[in-house]
């Protein structure tokens, strides 16, 4: 029995290894691309009465309440405007608590059975992978550059200038930026007052944040400030903002070399570590900090404006929420980045490709942004809408936190995605090093240098 069982075990283990190896050799193993893919032929306009059905995958359908309801409403409105196009909406498949983290694996598994969704909402951190590995279709080829630009110009209100090119790769538009947020400094006005600080003058530099945080800690006993950009769970979007604000970069401009061990970056990590060591920043996880702030037990938090609704709900009548632009480093301008997602086309047939473009045009129209902003609270990328009394002016006037957020839109820089098929290991590895320095007291310079050397091997071609 025993020898037979162990043989069976060994055979099963072997079979398993082969199976998992086969799973690993999926879509991602295509040759590393450089964005110079062969042009895709133009998708002709749909003929009169031509029936098409397409699938739209968005993580917004994974969330009950305003998200699903608003998107269903938009799809309904699209049906009315385009009765010949049927849209089936779906959320990414997968088992993560946050459906937004399942987008790429979901797309890959559907591609592996030859049925990718036609339109997909994907994050900017995945841009390189989306274009070069997953082969999202270049919209400039599909419908023509002039048509893509015309959509950005809009019927009345154009896209914010900096938002127009966020889904571009090598001069071609692959994704139409759809929803996003910028990092904001949210604060608890009640704790500010108790600590003798003026909520009308929130801190504008990190030195002021540290000082105010210490005052809050000393006078109220509550925690001071948390920067939700320094852990693996936070990903690297607003860490990049901190680094850019100090004149550094996490990767060179030509994207061939990791640069997160350069002095400008280690200075940022050292400054954040000092806040933890001085007791100005609590040593907490992302989730703990968000909840402590919503509960009123934390003075300030640098957080995505997407969480504003959670904070406003937590504050209720108990304490007053304040919001300010992201602070900068002494004498240098703050450089916010954006988190969020764009809409990409993966449809295979020309008719579906054209229908996919029609859906994207609709979802990024003035009408759709008005619905999305008022019902979900996302930033309208057609910023002019907030000055139009017939569109978003009443909503903007009732939303005191919108102004600093919109101002940041004008001077933000893109969230740079890491290159190659190992982009997630590179991004997560970098953030692990940052986390261990800031929250576990490791030496910033040596930790970042060691990690950079290790991760450089994962760049395409193993470049250092």
């Amino acid at each position, binding site marked *: 029995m025993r020898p037979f069982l162990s043989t069976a075990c060994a*055979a*099963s283990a072997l079979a398993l290894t082969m199976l998992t190896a086969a799973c690993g050799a999926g879509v991602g193993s295509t040759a590393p691309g450089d964005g110079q893919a062969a042009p895709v032929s133009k998708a002709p306009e749909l003929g009169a009465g031509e029936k098409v059905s397409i699938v739209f995958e968005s993580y917004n359908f994974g*969330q009950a309440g305003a998200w699903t309801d608003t998107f269903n409403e938009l799809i309904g409105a699209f049906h009315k405007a385009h009765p010949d196009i049927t849209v089936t909406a*779906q959320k990414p498949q997968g088992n993560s608590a*946050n459906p937004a983290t399942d987008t790429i694996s979901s797309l890959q598994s559907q591609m592996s059975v030859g049925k990718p969704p036609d339109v997909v909402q994907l994050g900017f951190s995945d841009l390189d992978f989306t274009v070069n590995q997953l082969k999202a279709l270049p919209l400039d080829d599909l419908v023509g550059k002039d048509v893509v630009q015309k959509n950005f110009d809009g019927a009345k209100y154009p896209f914010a200038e900096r938002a127009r090119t966020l889904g571009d790769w090598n001069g071609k538009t692959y994704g139409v930026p759809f929803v996003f947020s910028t990092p904001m400094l949210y604060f608890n006005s009640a704790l500010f007052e108790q600590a003798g600080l003026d909520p009308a003058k929130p801190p504008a530099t990190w030195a002021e944040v540290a000082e105010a945080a210490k005052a809050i800690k000393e006078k109220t006993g509550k925690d001071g400030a948390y920067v939700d950009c320094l852990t693996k769970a936070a990903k690297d979007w607003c860490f990049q903002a901190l680094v850019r604000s100090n004149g550094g970069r996490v990767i060179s401009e030509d994207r061939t070399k990791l640069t997160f061990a350069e002095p400008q970056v280690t200075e940022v990590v050292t400054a954040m570590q000092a806040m933890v060591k001085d007791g100005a920043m609590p040593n907490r996880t992302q989730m703990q900090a968000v909840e402590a702030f919503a*509960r009123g037990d934390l003075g300030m938090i640098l957080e995505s404006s997407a969480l504003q609704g959670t904070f406003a709900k937590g504050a209720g*009548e108990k304490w007053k929420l304040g919001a300010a632009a992201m602070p900068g480093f002494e004498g240098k301008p703050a450089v916010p980045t954006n988190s969020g997602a764009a809409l990409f086309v993966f449809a295979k047939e020309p008719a579906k490709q054209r229908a996919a473009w029609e859906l994207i045009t609709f979802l990024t129209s003035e009408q759709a942004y008005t619905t999305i902003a008022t019902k979900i609270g996302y930033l309208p990328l057609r910023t002019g809408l907030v000055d139009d009394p017939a569109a978003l002016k009443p909503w903007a006037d009732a939303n005191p936190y919108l102004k600093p957020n919109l101002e940041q839109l004008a001077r933000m820089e893109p969230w740079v995605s890491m290159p190659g098929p190992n982009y997630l290991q590179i991004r997560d590895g970098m953030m692990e090093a940052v986390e261990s320095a800031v929250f576990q007291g490791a030496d910033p310079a040596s930790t970042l240098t060691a990690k950079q050397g290790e991760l450089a091997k994962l760049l395409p071609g193993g470049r250092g």
Partner: protein
Amino acid sequence: MDETAPVGERGGIARRAGGHIMLGLLGLLCVFPIYWLYATSLRAPQDVYELSVLPWPLSLDSYADAMAKNDVAGMLLNTAIVAVLSALGQLLIGLLAAYAFAAWRFPLQRPLYLLFVGTWLVPFQATMLPNYALLGQLGLLETLAGVIIPTLCSTLGVLLLREHLMSFPKELLDAARMDGRSAWGILWTVVVPTLRPVLAALGILLAITAWNEYFWPAMVLQRSNAVIQLGLRSFMGTEGNDWGPLMATAGLACLPVFALYLFLQRHIVNAFVRSGLK
């Protein structure tokens, strides 16, 4: 000796009391997360982040919110259908396979049985994609049938029932055969009535497992949240978690399992003991 006895007894009592206190504390530790779940679900929406142990004032708003945002009753019904059909299917297939392995002799019996055992060693994640592709070809994605069918054959069921059938007196089977009963007749009139406690225990265990299943439905049902475990996830997202309705839905998802436990406590404990699982 007489003098030392009471001291020993006292020591015994103290030890026993210590043991009970320890067990009590461990019990509290186990129950506390469940208590916290219900406490959070009963807080008023604006108090959801409060850390007070006793929620006050009590509010059912989170339950109303959960019901308004999701079809919770429909989800519970769907989950019950999946759990019952999946458990019944596994019992039936397990019973037939175990009967064949235990009561019959046929070529390659042992290697075939070991192959069955071997499938237990292959993690679900390895078979997930082939199963998904097959369901896609059969057109069963996005259906409850797609959730149920790939779970129908359970190695645990075959293994457990075979072990029980192996200890089943062969004389009884021989006697029934001499009475002229068919193999099918023997299974249903002799074997099944004797195995009833085992089948009940295993059925409960399988139903609870299917009720709690999350990973596979999340793969198959991409366009709806038809089962309750997926409904739970719909309160988590990029914009933070909606703890009130999340906890309310989780509380409701636990109720049928608690009810089952309350009424069939003996069978459930039995099931865990028999399967060697904890």
